[in-house]
């Protein structure tokens, strides 16, 4: 795993590894490009995307609305405060980081609110 990604995420920055040689995205993050195996370096990612699907978790400690978001060529599961969501809706990442136990989190809101 690309440790730089975690360092960046810990600071609340969502930057994803891009291949220095062919420009491909390494997602999930990796120090090497999955296409040509050259090194990658972090670049700031677009913070907007499309909500593909969403649900509500009732699991204690993991509760809340969550959804699969497509941002450019990557997909990620994030959390939402609002339950008034729709598939295909444009959304924006407002916050990201690492919890104390090392779990990543990504928070989104609809761009219309």
């Amino acid at each position, binding site marked *: 795993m690309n440790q730089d990604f975690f360092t960046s995420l810990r600071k609340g920055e969502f930057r994803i590894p891009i291949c220095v040689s062919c420009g491909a995205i390494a997602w999930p993050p990796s120090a090497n490009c999955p296409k040509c195996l050259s090194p990658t370096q972090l670049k700031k990612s677009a913070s907007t995307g499309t909500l593909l699907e969403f649900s509500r*978790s009732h699991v204690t400690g993991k509760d809340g609305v969550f959804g699969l978001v497509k941002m450019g060529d990557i997909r990620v599961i994030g959390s939402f405060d609002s339950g008034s969501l729709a598939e295909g809706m444009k959304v924006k990442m407002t916050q990201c980081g690492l919890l104390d136990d090392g779990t990543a*989190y990504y928070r989104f809101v609809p761009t219309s609110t």
Partner: protein
Amino acid sequence: MHRVAIVSQSGSKYSKDSGKGIFDLACEPCARILNSENLDKANLGAVLFSSCTTEQYSSTILSELLGIRPQISHRIDNLCNSGTNAVVSGYSLIASGLCDTVLVVGAEKARSEGNKLGWDITRGSFMLPVHWAALFAKAHMRKYGTSEEEMAMVSVKNRGNASSNPDALFRNPVTLDEVMASRKIADPLKLLDCSAACDGASAVLLASEEKAKELTDEPVWIQGIGQYTSSASFANATADLCSIEAAKVAAQAAYKMSKTEPSQIDVAEVHDAFTILEILAYEDLGFTKKGTGGKFVKQDNIAINARGGIIGRGHPVGATGVAQVVEIADQLAGSAGDAQVKGCKKGLVHNLAAAGSSATVIVMGSE
């Protein structure tokens, strides 16, 4: 390639906590297999151990405990489809001529740390399997109108089948109302839409055609194998949340190798870790048209998860794929007891791991 037969198979009784260690669990189903009078137990070609245990050198320890000095021994770990991966590896050792007998053993403790996939950062803080399963379910409902009741009927069917299986984790059947009223886990999935991790073990003995003739009068043949790995992450597993790409590719390969059409399958064990996965399996395996899986639950042309599936029988992660092969081998050998499907000639195993990011499909036959 040499033909490969399953000559003996056995499973253990599943439980939430057996009170046994991983090796005691693993030895349990092997006793019936290894006590065959025609078998040169000490000199088996290989012992393959399917488990997510964090115990090191585990297949070698298991070999010693079973009194076997195999040529080849190693552990195979691929989360929920570890078991079928181990069977495929055993098949390869015999088909290539490297071994003439392979013992494949799957065993797991319910609380094994190795059962969890912590690597997939694309899942954010929603790391549990039920979270991706809920997204599959929502997508299928939205696109094809599949209902929560249709998903619940998978649980009713499989728990009903498990009620006559003395080895099953859950022996009590459930009603549609009970499934629908069970505690919400991740919408639309409820507690009774989900399988449960448990302690359990299963084992099969594979043999070359020549060796099989010495060991049994009723060999079950592995006729076709398909496997595919699309990713390890949920993000890259499948573009369309209404199907499992890896399962579709694996099924096509297994059907092609075995020269089988989906309509020829009489019995199947499909990976129902969540009810929605069984509905997707109906479609991905070509049993019914895309989008009609919800309606297919009530069909009776193919006996699917006749001994309870993962929802009823339980889910000891590393043992599950071996257990699925045991169930189909029992059916094709005519030794499935109360669950026996009369006249069955072809069976199929469908085994997934980690959001369907990898899949195995095995076609087996009595001829």
